[in-house]
């Protein structure tokens, strides 16, 4: 599973994806090519319906493209069988969603432990990093509560804690601040940034919020299913004002 230093951790080439509803065909991704190096924080921006989430799903092995290849740590994701693809996702990727997606009948602690439980860990065993995570995400008082008993911001923190718990090499976040307050959103983005800075994890963020995208090292703009290459921002160029300019330039 190891990869060479130069090899991108996530790579997509010539990816096409079209949704079909009866006779209507809606092309969502067109010849998308993308490479993400390990340890980078990459944001994908675009207007609603531009294909951001679809691209994330295709890159994470959730939704097969009609054409093109996706490589994850050098593995051709869609050449793998379902089980192998599931295990690759389980071991390498942590997901954060806009709508939290916590399991309603499991407690906060159990939701955080869920990936480890799926890997076979006994839920009654509480590893030390769990306590650290709960403390860091300020969930100490909520550890034994159920999702419906905590706030939206707390739910999202649980969701990120869950994504981080098994220390995946990649974190894929789909509009993680879309459903929480701006203060809670700021907190969530800081946590994601810290993952990249402190743990060297690769972050792939899908957002339409320029303030969130400004936390990234690199921002790709997606319009009508294509990556508008000439408006990609990188490193020092990434800031909220430049992002807004790019969006304006793209007429979004």
């Amino acid at each position, binding site marked *: 599973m190891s990869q060479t230093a130069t090899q991108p951790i996530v790579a997509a080439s010539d990816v096409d994806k079209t949704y079909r509803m009866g006779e209507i065909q809606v092309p969502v991704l067109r010849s998308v090519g993308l490479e993400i190096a390990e340890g980078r924080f990459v944001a994908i921006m675009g207007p609603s319906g531009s294909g951001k*989430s*679809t691209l994330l*799903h295709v890159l*994470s092995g*959730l*939704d097969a493209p009609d054409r093109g290849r996706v490589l994850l740590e050098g593995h051709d994701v869609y050449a793998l069988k*379902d*089980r192998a693809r*599931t*295990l690759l*996702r*389980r*071991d390498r990727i*942590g*997901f954060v*969603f806009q*709508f939290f*997606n916590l*399991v*309603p*009948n*499991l407690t906060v602690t*159990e939701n955080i432990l*869920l*990936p480890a*439980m*799926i*890997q*076979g860990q*006994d*839920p009654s065993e509480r590893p030390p990093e769990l306590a650290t995570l709960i403390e860091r995400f300020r969930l100490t008082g909520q550890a034994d509560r159920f999702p*419906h008993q905590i706030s939206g911001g707390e739910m999202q923190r649980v969701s990120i804690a*869950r994504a981080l718990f098994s220390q995946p090499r990649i974190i894929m976040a*789909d509009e993680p601040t879309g459903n929480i307050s701006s203060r809670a959103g700021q907190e969530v983005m800081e946590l994601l940034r810290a993952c990249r800075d402190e743990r060297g994890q690769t972050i792939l963020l899908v957002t339409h919020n320029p303030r969130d995208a400004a936390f990234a090292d690199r921002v790709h703009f997606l319009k009508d299913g294509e990556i508008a290459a000439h408006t990609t921002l990188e490193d020092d160029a990434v800031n909220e004002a430049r992002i807004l300019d790019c969006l304006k330039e793209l007429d979004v």
Partner: protein
Amino acid sequence: MKLAFLIASRSLTSRKLRTAASMLGIAVGIGTVIAIFVIDHNTNLSQERRRSEDSARPDIEITPLHSNPAGVLDISRSLESIPGVLEATGAFFNGITLVRNERPIADLELCGLEPGKSETFSAYRIAEGRDLEPGDTEAFLLPRGLATRLEISLGDSIVVRRRRPPVRGCRDGQIVTVDEGGARDEDQVQSMRLVGLLAPERLGRRQLAITTFQASVKLFRDDHFLPIFWARLSSSTTAEEVQRRVQSDFTVSTPRFALAGEALEEKAFRNGVLASAMMALLLGLFIIFNSMSMSLNERIRQIGLLSALGTTRAQISAIFLAEGGILALSGGVLGVAIGLGLAALLKAYRITTLGLGERVDTFEIPLPAVSAVVGLGVLFALLGILWPLVKARRLSTTEALRSGRADFKDLRQRTRIGVYLVLVILIPLGFLGVSHLVVGGTQRMLLILLKAGGALAAVFGVLLFCPGFLTRATRWVLGPWSRLFRLETRLAESSMTGSGHRIFTSVTGLMLVFATLLGVKSITGSLQDETRQWADRALPPSLYVRSEPLDRMRLLELEELEGVRGVVPLTAEINSPFTIRGVEPESLARTARSAEQHRLVEKLSAGDGIVLSEYLARSYRYRIGDTIELPTFDGPRPYEVIGVSDAFGFFPDNRKYGLIREADMRRDFCRTNDSLTQLAVILEDGAAEHRVEERVRASLSSLEWLTIKRASAIRARHVREIERDFFIFDVILLLIVCLAALGMLNSLVIAALERRKEIALLRIIGLTRAQLSGVLLLETISIGLIGGVLAALLGVPVSWIVVQGLANVSGLGVAFELSPVLLIGCVLGSVLVSLIASLLPLRQAHRVDYATAIRYE
């Protein structure tokens, strides 16, 4: 309304599997009950129609043991004073001749009846003129056709002369003809006036004249006459009970045409079928309610959304009612079609509520009962769909929108009591009202039903009022699996404990079905055991021979055959009030197999004693030492019950019989074994039945008519007949198992739909297909196990109660026997049904498009 129908129809068409499962649940629930009601109705109707068309319809006939009984005119009143006898009338039949101008014009039967009783006993209907009135001593009625033929008009007077056919009787073993009588010629005639003409139905179809009981008694007062009395009984009284009350003076019999469906065993059987139908109804309504109300969270979110968009509560109600209405009505129509189709199939294959093989000639639909069942089904469907509205009233729009969390656990105590009352009390009572459950026979039967209902109510109450019970049960069941499948167990547990409503529904459904199955199979098993035990007692290796008359020499030849232990002549037989056979103690002694049997034979040989079969003794509650008075020509003759045993005297296929000494039968009834037509050939131990049969056939080869039945074949047939008769239960059970499977399927489909997002999430973060299958299968197996174990806990006491009750009312010596195989089979069956029901939802869970589910749902 347009919006309501639009949203309702979209909701139904978007979830096709759920819609189909709900509709089928409603349809099968309604259809099962309708099928049973229709076939029961037509079984009875056919039996009724087949009853003699030219007789009255009393429940019982009571015959005095003495001819010319004293105070005959008051007997009816004293019979009516017996508790349970609603009404009684004297009925007297004897021969008369109508005389005109001193010339006989017709020989008729004269029927004397008490005035005003015709309607009660469905005896006749007046077509023209008037009915008889009290005090009419010279009035009579004639069938209209007969009067026309004889040219007798209303108001005409005619001379009636009694005919005196010789009365044959038995006195001290001699047949006597009574032809002397002190009647003077002038007493033998009476002038009577025709006051009414009978319609050609019931007695009006016969060649008879009807007058008042008083007038007929007067006409025949100094002759040898034996009136009979007809009585109508309350539904809780049996002929046997009346017999015990009038034991010393009368014999009570059930008229031949009133037998079908009215004997105690048959009543018990029909009650069993109807009770199973009630279980089907209960289960059906329960499933209907839950099918509609189960997707509570989804619906509450929907209510929140509609409410947020400004939809009024009335509009929301209309949407839900439209959806429920479409589903319930289409399910109802389909249910009626299924019910009638099934009833037609049952009719075609002669599967009736009186057992297999009874012919059903009619196919009428009992509209009130069918309408009530459909109405109940539709009502429950609507209640089910409105349930989320009731729940949503307690939530604000934002709460409803945000989580829509509402569950069975949140039910208020008052609501629980309401549900309990409806399911455990109102529906069964309503069912009793609609189905006319055959409580008749005895209050004991009602008591059995109450006891069984009490057990059901107790278990149901625990489930309803202690929601924590199911949570704990879930943990107990899942506990052992957690070592092997830690994650799957935890996820299954969290899902189950978080979905109390769904689990309650599924578990209760399975419990009801498999408790019924356990009950029915236990009863069948107990009856078969009883039959086997009876066969062990009453059917030693033997052959039962029926033939044209044989002389004694032939009997001696048969006794000499190899393998024959002895031959018991069983030809001398009377039926009054039950079968009594005259047997020769010497022949019994040759075939007795134990010291006890020898002692019994010795007692019998002393004379004036009667040995009763166990079934007969139980039915009439006779004990050793009791005296039974048998009607003879010279009045009642007392016989002491000297034994209760099945060891001797059985002849196919009557298990209710008594044995007296042949000499006593000769003396009192002039019936003998001199000329033999019925023989029991008892075999030596170890002799092969078929070999001995060949020898018997060879020995009697000169006879033109001979039938031989083997004891082993009789035994096998009796056991087989129980299975055959109970076949309708298998059909009902199959239907309610399907119903439970549908309920379970519906529950799992709804659960899978509601958990699409959860399933998607789990798959996204790495749950493999095998692990997902494991979670769902563990959940399914647990529900099946809990349902099965509860079914056993409910089924065992209910079966025990029913079997005890059956022994009590039927006179059969049935004892409850618990078969471990049946018990285990019941639990495994419950698990199997759950697993079968889970296949589709499992497939559905695997086909969840998790990228879409996670994003949009």
